[in-house]
């Protein structure tokens, strides 16, 4: 039986798949400079989705790193960040649409550039959402992995670092989760050449519980109790 799957996605692409509870997803910034926009949905109830404000305020954090859990809008944990060698992922800047992408990197359509076109994260999400009967109304603020964005005392946002060669982040899922992702540029990317950093991706089917590092906050222990209650409903 195959227990793991590994692949590499070029920049400017998108994908979706269901992660089972207990399985793990590892993202690798292969060459440095990768950005991964990601959204989560409950495959049993697609109205339940990733909620950035709940995720940030439940853990009193603006940056996401190892030990943090990523929450749905129903008080449940989609997954926890089990390991992270980068240290700072952001969840408020969203994703660029076609017009913004063209403004930053120039227009480049498929007829002209084939798979080197300047694909944008918004359309990428729309394409993946449509596969599950979802649309624009279902889109929420995503996570941008490998994006360090800081706010100063006046609230001004600054992207300080985007990726690092070999950086890895591993997500451990606490419930079945529909994952949507794109590898399009981060919204605060300076203009110029369209970033071309590929993403390494590994899915491990071997099940494990959320690690201790994700359960140090009382909030996350309670979030996991909410997952357990949901699991119980499935078993009754």
């Amino acid at each position, binding site marked *: 039986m195959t227990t793991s799957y590994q692949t590499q996605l070029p920049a400017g692409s998108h994908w979706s798949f269901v992660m089972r509870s207990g399985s793990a997803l590892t993202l690798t910034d292969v060459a440095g400079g990768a950005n991964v926009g990601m959204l989560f949905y409950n495959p049993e109830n697609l109205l339940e989705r990733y909620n950035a*404000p709940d995720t940030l*305020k439940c853990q009193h*954090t603006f940056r996401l790193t190892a030990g943090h859990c990523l929450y749905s809008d129903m*008080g449940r944990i989609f997954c926890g960040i089990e390991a992270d060698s980068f240290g700072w992922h952001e969840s408020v800047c969203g*994703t660029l649409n076609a017009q913004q992408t063209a403004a930053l990197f120039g227009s480049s359509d498929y007829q002209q550039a084939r798979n080197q076109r300047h694909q944008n994260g918004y359309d990428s999400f729309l394409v993946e959402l449509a596969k599950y009967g979802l649309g624009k109304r279902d889109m929420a*603020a995503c996570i941008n992995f490998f994006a360090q964005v*800081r*706010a100063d005392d006046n609230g001004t946002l600054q992207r300080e670092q985007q990726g690092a060669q070999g950086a890895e982040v591993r997500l451990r899922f606490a419930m079945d989760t529909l994952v949507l992702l794109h590898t399009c540029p981060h919204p605060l990317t300076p203009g110029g050449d369209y970033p071309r950093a590929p993403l390494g991706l590994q899915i491990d089917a071997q099940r494990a519980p959320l690690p201790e590092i994700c359960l140090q906050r009382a909030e996350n222990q*309670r979030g996991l109790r*909410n997952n357990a209650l949901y699991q119980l409903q499935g078993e009754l």
Partner: protein
Amino acid sequence: MIKESLLNPAEAHVQQQIGAGDYWLHRIEKGQTLRITDLEGNQAADTLFFNADDTAERYSMSDTLRGQHNVFLTAGSVLRSNDDRPMLTIVADTCGRHDTLGGACATESNTVRYDLEKRHMHACRDSWMLAVAEHPEYGLTRRDITHNINFFMNVPVTHEGGLTFADGISAPGKYVELVAQMNILVLISNCPQLNNPCNGYNPTPILVSVW
């Protein structure tokens, strides 16, 4: 940025008080001005905006933050939609800072934040759910309920990436005023939260005015 309004309250054609725990769902036309007044201070007005002519277009926290490269909202801020279009502009603000990172309280997130047995306590997302259920004429559903603005709420971000819920910087009579750049549905939940300092543990009424 503190900026006072020149509008005369006596000339407003809508003046309505909203009790804590209640919602207000109202259409305003392009060019009209909406004022929200924090009558007793330290209240949080959890607000969503929709394009009244196409509700799939709505206020977007991330487009707004990216558009202004700043996490706080105040006079001069342009509230952007998920299509990255300007929806409303904040033209006056006597509070100085409003939050759009903290989201709205929900019975579900209350269990995580405070206690599993606080599920029964009234929360903002309940008010929104009731609003969309009681007003099918607007075509809104739970799918449309996303990230909101918390007027009068103070949520500073630290240099190290922390997020804090600070004491409010609002006070009795502080207000924020917005001009609509398109026809807008306004959906406010006047926050009933009893568990954190966003409203000083004492939810109070707000006043909405439209010119």
